[in-house]
C-alpha cells in the first residue's frame, strides 16, 4: 500500500521522552521513548505494536498533549498538541487505557454531558444503540463489566465525531461479541475517512485491523509496513522464501516423516501426536504427505495450514515474547 504523502493526520518525528528523576536510578532521568517516528493517514488504521513497556502509550500521550515531550516534533492535524487549544481537542477523540470514566457516573447522562462539550456531537441515542450501550445505559460505571466499560469509553471518544481517533489497547477486556462489534465499527469509521491510531500488544488485533503497523521496542521503531509487507519482508530465520507456512496435524505419535518430506521443511513433534511442519510448503508437499498417510492407513485427527503470523515476525525482530 502506498502511503500518501499529503496531510497526514498525525506525524511524529524523533520523539524523545524522559521521565524522572527517579530514586531507583540514583536520581537520574529514564529515557522511555528515544526517537520514535511515525505517520498516520486519514482513512487508515495505524497500529503501534509492541510489548508492555515498549513506549506505545507514552508516544500516544505525547501526541494527545497529555504528556510533555522532551524532544522531537509532533504535528496533529497540522498543530502542536503541546500548545493547541479546544479547537484541536474538538477534532480528536481519545480512548485511554484505563478508561477515564468516573465510577459513580451512569453511561447515558455521562455521554450526554460529554456531547454537550461539542458544537455538533454524534447523536447520543444513535451512538448508544450502535455500541449496545442501551442495555446498560443507567447502570453505574463501577458495576459494568470490563467489556461494557470499554465500549462506553469508546463511545466517549467518538461522541465528538473526531477526525482523528486514538485507541489505547481497544480490545482489552472485550468478550468475542463485543470485540466483533467494536472491530466492525472501527472498520466503518476508517472507511468513512477517520484517521485511527491504536496501540496493541495483541498480534491478532493488528493483523485484523491495521492498514499500517509500526513495531515499537525499547522506546524505538524497529520495523514498519503493512501487515503483508512485514510478513514478506521478514520471511523467517533462514529460508529466504516468500511464503512460509506452517502445517499442524494430529496423528498417532512417533511417526518418522523424514523420508516423506524433503529437506527444506522443518518437522517437529512438540507434543506426542502433534506435528508441526514449517517451511516453504507447496501443494507437492501436501500431496506427498497425503499419499504416505494413505499407504500407512493413517487418518489425521485434525490438520490446519497457517500463514506465517505477525507474531512470528515480531519474535524474529525483537526476540521477545509479546503476550
Amino acid at each position, binding site marked *: 500500500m502506498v502511503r500518501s504523502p499529503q496531510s497526514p493526520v498525525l506525524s511524529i518525528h524523533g520523539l524523545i521522552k524522559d521521565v524522572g528523576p527517579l530514586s531507583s536510578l540514583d536520581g537520574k532521568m529514564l529515557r522511555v521513548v528515544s526517537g520514535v517516528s511515525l505517520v498516520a493517514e486519514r482513512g487508515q488504521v495505524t497500529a503501534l505494536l509492541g510489548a508492555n513497556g515498549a513506549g506505545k502509550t507514552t508516544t500516544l500521550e505525547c501526541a*494527545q*498533549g*497529555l504528556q510533555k515531550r522532551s524532544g522531537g516534533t509532533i504535528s496533529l492535524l497540522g498543530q502542536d498538541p503541546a500548545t493547541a*487549544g*479546544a*479547537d484541536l*481537542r*474538538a*477534532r*480528536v477523540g*481519545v480512548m*485511554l487505557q*484505563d*478508561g*477515564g*470514566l*468516573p*465510577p*459513580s*457516573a451512569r453511561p447515558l447522562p455521562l455521554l450526554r*454531558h*460529554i456531547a*454537550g*462539550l*461539542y*458544537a*455538533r456531537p*454524534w*447523536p447520543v441515542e*444513535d*451512538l448508544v444503540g450502535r455500541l449496545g450501550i442501551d442495555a446498560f445505559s443507567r447502570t453505574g460505571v463501577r458495576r459494568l463489566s470490563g467489556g461494557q466499560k470499554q465500549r462506553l*469509553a469508546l463511545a*466517549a471518544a*467518538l461522541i*465528538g*465525531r*473526531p*477526525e482523528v481517533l486514538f485507541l489505547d489497547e481497544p480490545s482489552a477486556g472485550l468478550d468475542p461479541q463485543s470485540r466483533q462489534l467494536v472491530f466492525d465499527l472501527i472498520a*466503518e*469509521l476508517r472507511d*468513512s*475517512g*477517520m484517521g485511527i491510531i491504536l496501540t496493541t500488544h495483541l498480534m491478532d488485533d493488528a493483523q485484523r485491523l491495521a492498514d499500517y503497523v509500526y513495531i515499537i521496542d525499547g522506546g524505538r521503531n524497529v520495523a514498519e509496513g503493512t501487515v503483508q509487507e512485514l510478513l514478506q519482508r521478514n520471511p523467517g530465520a533462514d529460508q529466504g522464501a516468500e511464503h512460509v507456512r506452517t502445517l499442524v496435524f494430529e496423528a498417532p505419535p512417533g511417526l518418522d516423516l523424514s523420508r516423506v518430506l524433503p529437506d527444506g521443511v522443518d518437522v517437529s513433534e512438540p507434543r506426542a501426536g502433534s506435528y508441526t511442519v514449517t517451511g516453504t510448503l507447496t501443494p507437492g508437499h501436501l500431496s506427498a504427505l497425503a499419499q504416505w498417510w494413505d499407504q500407512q492407513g493413517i487418518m489425521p485427527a485434525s490438520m490446519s495450514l497457517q500463514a506465517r503470523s505477525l507474531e512470528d515476525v515480531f519474535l524474529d525482530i525483537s526476540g521477545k515474547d509479546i503476550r
Partner: protein
Amino acid sequence: MSPAATQQTQQPASLLRRVLLQGKYEALTMLRNGEQLILAVVLPLLALVGLTVTPFLDGMGSSRINVAVPGILALCAMSTAFTGQGIATGFDRRYGVLRFLSTTPLGRGGLIAGKVLSVLAVLCLQVVVVGAVAMALGWKPVAAGWLPGLALLALGAAAFTALGLLVAGTVRPEATLAITNLLWILLGAMGGIVIPAERLPAAAQAVVHFLPSGALGESMRAAFLGGALNGGAALILLLWTVIAGAAAIRWFKWN
C-alpha cells in the same frame, strides 16, 4: 451515511457553555453523593443546633444563634470546597477522569473552572438551606452584613478549593480522604471557624488568626454581627488563595 462522517470541521461548544456544563455536572454529582450531602448539609445543621442549645457562645453577641450562623456558613464553605471537592478530585485523578476530560474540548482550564463553579453552586444551596433553618430558629442577621458576608464566603470557598485541589493533586486519594476529613474536624473544632478564637486555649489563639478557617470565621462574624468588613482577615484569605492556587498549579499531578 454514518453519523460519524461529518462534512464540517468539528468545533468545540463555547467556553462559557463548556464550563457551565461541567459545573452543573459536578454539582449534581456532589448532591447525589450521600456522604457529601451529610458533610455539606447535615453536619453543619447539627453543629448549628448544638451551638444554640449549649452556652459556648454566650456573651459573644446579641444571641447564641446570631453568633453561630456566620461560622456555620463558613463551615459549609470548608465542607464543600475543601473536603468534598478535594475527595472527588482525588478519586477522579485515580480513575483517569481528569486525564480523559483534559483531552476533550473542556481541557484542564475548563475542568478547574467547572470545579470552582460547582463549589459555588452547592454553596448557594447550603446558604439557602442553612439560612432558612437558622431564621426559623430565630437568626437575625444585620442587613448590611449580606454583601460583605457573601463576598467573603466566596473568597473563602476559593481559598479552600485551592487547598483541596493541592491535596488532591499531590497525594493518593485515600490520603486525600484522610487528610481533608481530619482537617475538617480539627479546623471545625479548633480552627476558629465556628468557635471564635477568644473561646479557644490561649496557645491556639495566635495561630488561629492566620489560618484560613479562623480568617473566614472571624470575618463572617464581623459581617453578619456588625455589618463590617474585616480587611485583615480578608487579606489573609486572599493570600491563602493565591499561595495555595500557585502551589496547586506548580505541583498538581494529573496522572
